[in-house]
């Protein structure tokens, strides 16, 4: 399990409508978000990397996916410090875990149907 549905639902006061709106919105915007992250990493655009990793950290936190939150946090901190070396070290893990989040979001969305 990647997304902690119980905890996330609790954070939204057990409101399934709101919970699934977040899941569905994430799924529909994932490709765009992933592409923006990849572009910022390829261009080594520090400001963009900081913004993208900050957003992913927030998403991961919302879904209680701690390992993605941690790696995004490391990347965000490195971007704030201008440390491209650390970003290079963690970027694969970041992208992999981001994909895992999508896979689990789709699973949860499908289970509802």
């Amino acid at each position: 399990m990647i997304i902690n549905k119980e905890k996330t639902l609790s954070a939204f006061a057990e409101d399934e409508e709101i919970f699934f709106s977040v899941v569905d919105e994430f799924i529909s915007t994932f490709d765009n978000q992933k592409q923006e992250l990849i572009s910022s990493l390829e261009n080594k655009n520090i400001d963009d990397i900081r913004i993208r990793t900050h957003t992913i950290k927030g998403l991961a936190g919302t879904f209680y996916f701690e390992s993605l939150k941690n790696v995004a946090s490391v990347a965000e901190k490195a971007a704030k410090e201008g440390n491209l070396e650390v970003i290079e070290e963690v970027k694969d893990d970041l992208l992999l875990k981001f994909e895992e989040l999508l896979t689990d979001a789709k699973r949860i969305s499908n289970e509802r149907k």
Partner: protein
Amino acid sequence: MSASKILFIDDEKMISAAIVKSLVKKGYSVDICHSSVEGAKLADGGEYDLILLDIEMPELSGLEILKRLRENVDKSLLPIIMLTGNEDDKDIIEALKLGANDYLTKPMNTEVLTARIETQLSLRKLSLENAKKGEVDALNALITTYNHEINNPLTIAFGMVEIMKRKEEFSPEKMDKTMDALIRIRDIVKKIQEASEANELNFETYIKDSKMLKL
């Protein structure tokens, strides 16, 4: 009673949309702004009862917006709750020093958020009621002061002039009494004006529950 109006300033779109939905369901009127610069302008407009303000935003940070707002609006009149995704306490401490009313760390629980919003709105309502009561008390005290300090010498002055008119005779003694009464009125009016300009209105008990200005 109209819904409380909240301004939510956060560059993140997905989760903030969910939070707005949640707050609207609870009966609040919420405007969301994803641009920190636009958000700062909206916040300055004075239309909102409370502001939810993300700390970390591009262009203008939440702390900068907070600092600018607090230059013009007291925290009792415009509560601001800061939102942060960082675990570092430094930003939170800085926000509280700059005049934030409260803070929440993300991911946030919407029930907790609602409870905090309600607390701040209740405190704001109390502040507004106290301010209004203070204004009414000050006005009542001013009326009592005018009645006591000004009416009495005014009556004396009128009385003296009436007597001289009726008797058709000029009396230096009565003129002096008239002049004294008018000088007393002038001095009282001046003291009230000075106290008002200096924002230093003090009160003393006139009789029982009635207060007048202490000049």
